[in-house]
């Protein structure tokens, strides 16, 4: 009685045009492009041969809106609705050539094909070969062999851009809910936790707490009401991995949550999504409805005694709610104020019950680990940081977008090889990771491998996955002040070091920015950073000085220059 048996998929069509209809591409008329492509396919009479589907994020967001055509895998950037006909025309020509014989998906005669693998494909005129291109200049084919794609290792994002996020059938066809089925049928909860522990998965929300250990703690609590919470309050500015996962593959997160609930003995789950992400919210609503109808959520899942319900909670714009105790308060309908830990939410969380809180990306890793085994996952990455990490590579970088890379890859490889450096060739000055709680890593340290410990040693953190490249023209003092302003405004005001300290730090940084600082200001800045770091109640305050400290460490000359200059 697997859900796959319920739906017989229609015979596959030889060509599939996938349009990104989420995120930045959607705002650049992604839906209109899809509609136009459908119209063009109908006009060419190819409905039986070419499928047009809306999919999630294709990754290379800076080139959006993106369209990818199967089976060739050619990727087109900067597509407009007017490009629909020229994109379909070569497919029609190929199909006409082969009319009579059944078109084979492994055809290599597509005129669009471009597998040069060179980074210079952006200006390739190859696409013009078909000769049927009307006035609007055609989108440029992007080879799927760009290092931006080939250096990735996709686990969390394996379905992103491949399946229609609004169809549970697509997810199931991609082996979705198989892991949950296996857990319920073959595995004891303890065995599930053991698998996650052995996989070495660590929390992807930023701090990197071992996931298996967290699950075991909640599981050990006396049975009774327990909760599983998915933290989708992705507050770090410059990071949008969770948004993309939720928009592109929402069922993966639900499946991870259901497995977690089975393992720890919870029957109710909450997903706390940022209010700024209306589409993620909508896709989750759709996914929840479908999952309930298919019986993979709700009562007696897969005819087992296991029940699990999930409710959505929409955030209302407060960065501090990403902190787990504040998030709990917010789910309870209160002001999102953190409280001291312990007790940790694993012991006393939502309404005083044991609560497991994991990040979106953590949950997204669960199903593949169960499917492929702990050893498979543990073989990826480094000794203490297993698996992969999704980053949103943004800022002054040519190929901006979402990437998933194995842990241990160097920053240089990400920024210079995959991102291909800055758009205008200006040297890179720093890479910022970890959002307002992280730090700026100088260009000199780009050969550092990406793992939890190495980034911490550099004075930054892994964080949730924002990676912002800054070129030489960026003022580090201004960046530090930018983050401090953020923390100042987002401070909930409960504890004084954070509430008052961030204001003082902001004003001090303002003096540096305006070249009004004195040597005493520098000493005070450092003392204050230390104080706020060590006396704040929650992670927001404790980490607020990080951007200042890391820029002081690597770009102290900019602060000194601000003192030296007469003002």
């Amino acid at each position, binding site marked *: 009685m697997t859900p796959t048996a319920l739906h017989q998929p229609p015979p596959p069509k030889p060509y599939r045009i996938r349009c990104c209809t989420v*995120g*930045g591409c959607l*705002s*650049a008329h992604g839906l209109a492009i899809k509609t136009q492509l459908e119209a063009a396919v109908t006009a060419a009479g190819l409905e039986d041969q070419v499928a047009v589907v809306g999919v999630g994020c294709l990754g*290379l*967001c*800076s080139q*959006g809106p993106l369209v990818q055509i199967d089976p060739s895998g050619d990727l087109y950037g900067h597509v407009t609705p007017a490009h629909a006909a020229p994109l379909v025309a070569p497919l029609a020509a190929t199909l006409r050539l082969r009319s009579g014989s059944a078109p084979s998906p492994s055809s290599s005669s597509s005129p669009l094909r471009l597998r040069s693998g060179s980074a210079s494909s952006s200006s390739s005129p190859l696409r013009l070969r078909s000769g049927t291109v009307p006035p609007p200049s055609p989108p440029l084919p992007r080879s799927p062999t760009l290092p931006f794609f080939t250096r990735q290792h996709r686990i969390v994002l394996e379905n992103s851009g491949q399946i229609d996020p609004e169809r549970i059938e697509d997810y199931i066809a991609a082996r979705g809910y198989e892991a949950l089925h296996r857990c319920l049928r073959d595995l004891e909860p303890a065995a599930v936790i053991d698998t996650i522990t052995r996989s070495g998965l660590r929390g992807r929300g930023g701090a990197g707490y071992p996931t298996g250990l967290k699950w075991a703690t909640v599981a050990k609590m006396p049975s009774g009401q327990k909760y599983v919470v998915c933290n989708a309050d*992705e*507050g*770090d*500015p*410059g*990071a*949008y991995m969770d*948004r*993309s996962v939720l928009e592109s593959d929402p069922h993966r997160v639900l499946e991870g949550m259901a497995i977690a609930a089975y393992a720890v003995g919870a029957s109710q789950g909450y997903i706390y999504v940022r*209010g*700024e*992400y209306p589409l993620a919210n909508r896709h989750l609503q759709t996914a929840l409805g479908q999952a309930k109808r298919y019986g993979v959520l709700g009562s007696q899942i897969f005819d087992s005694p296991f029940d699990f319900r999930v409710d959505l*909670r*929409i*955030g*209302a*714009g*407060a*960065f501090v709610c990403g902190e787990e105790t504040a998030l709990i308060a*917010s*789910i*309870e*309908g*209160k*002001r*999102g104020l953190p409280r001291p830990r312990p007790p940790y939410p694993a012991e006393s969380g939502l309404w005083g019950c044991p609560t497991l809180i994991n990040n979106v990306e953590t949950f997204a890793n669960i199903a593949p680990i169960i499917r492929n085994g702990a050893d498979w996952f543990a073989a990826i990455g480094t000794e203490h940081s297993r698996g992969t990490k999704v980053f*949103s590579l*943004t*800022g*002054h970088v040519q190929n*901006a*977008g*979402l990437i998933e890379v194995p842990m241990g890859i160097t920053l240089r490889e990400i920024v210079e090889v995959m991102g291909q450096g800055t758009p205008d060739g200006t040297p890179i000055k720093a890479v*910022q990771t970890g*959002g307002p709680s992280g730090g700026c890593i100088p260009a000199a340290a780009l050969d550092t491998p990406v793992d939890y410990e190495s980034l911490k040693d550099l004075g930054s953190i892994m964080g949730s996955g*924002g990676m*912002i490249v*800054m070129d030489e023209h*960026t003022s580090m003092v201004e*960046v530090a002040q*930018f*983050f401090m302003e*953020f923390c100042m405004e*987002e401070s*909930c005001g409960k504890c004084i070091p954070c509430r008052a300290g961030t204001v003082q730090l902001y004003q001090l940084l303002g003096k540096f920015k305006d070249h009004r600082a004195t040597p005493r200001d520098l000493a005070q800045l450092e003392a204050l950073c230390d104080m706020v770091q060590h006396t704040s109640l929650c992670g927001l305050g404790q980490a607020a000085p990080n951007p200042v400290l890391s820029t002081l460490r690597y770009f102290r000359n900019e602060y000194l220059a601000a003192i030296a200059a007469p003002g």
Partner: protein
Amino acid sequence: MKRHQYRPDALIEVLHQAQELYGYLEPELLLPIARRLRLPPSQVYGVATFYHFFSLEPQGLHTGVVCMGTACYVQGAAQLLRTLEQATHLRAGETSRDRQFSLSTARCLGACGVAPVVVFDQQLEGRQTPETVRDRLHTCLSAPPAP
């Protein structure tokens, strides 16, 4: 509207709905919400003011939101904001006296791949420059108000 079984913990959901229906949260609206959910008015007011998403004042007919996320910031979002502030004689968070336009900033809209971004009347515009936002502001103001 309040089909959350009048549960006090659904306060944030109820406020979301109320704001969607009325555009903003009038104090006169908060009182009945407090009564129906059996919560002290102080707590409802406290929650409504804590979260940035809720507005206690009416918004303009048209809105402009400048994303101030890090990716947008390093690509010149501050300049875009300054341009709009000068063009409208408003500061971020203000609404013009004739209620035509509200200017505000956002933390991060998750569209970092096309940074810097500005949202005019719910339509997100990527890769903006001071020139394009000025043009876009004019088309936005001359368009009929969004429903």
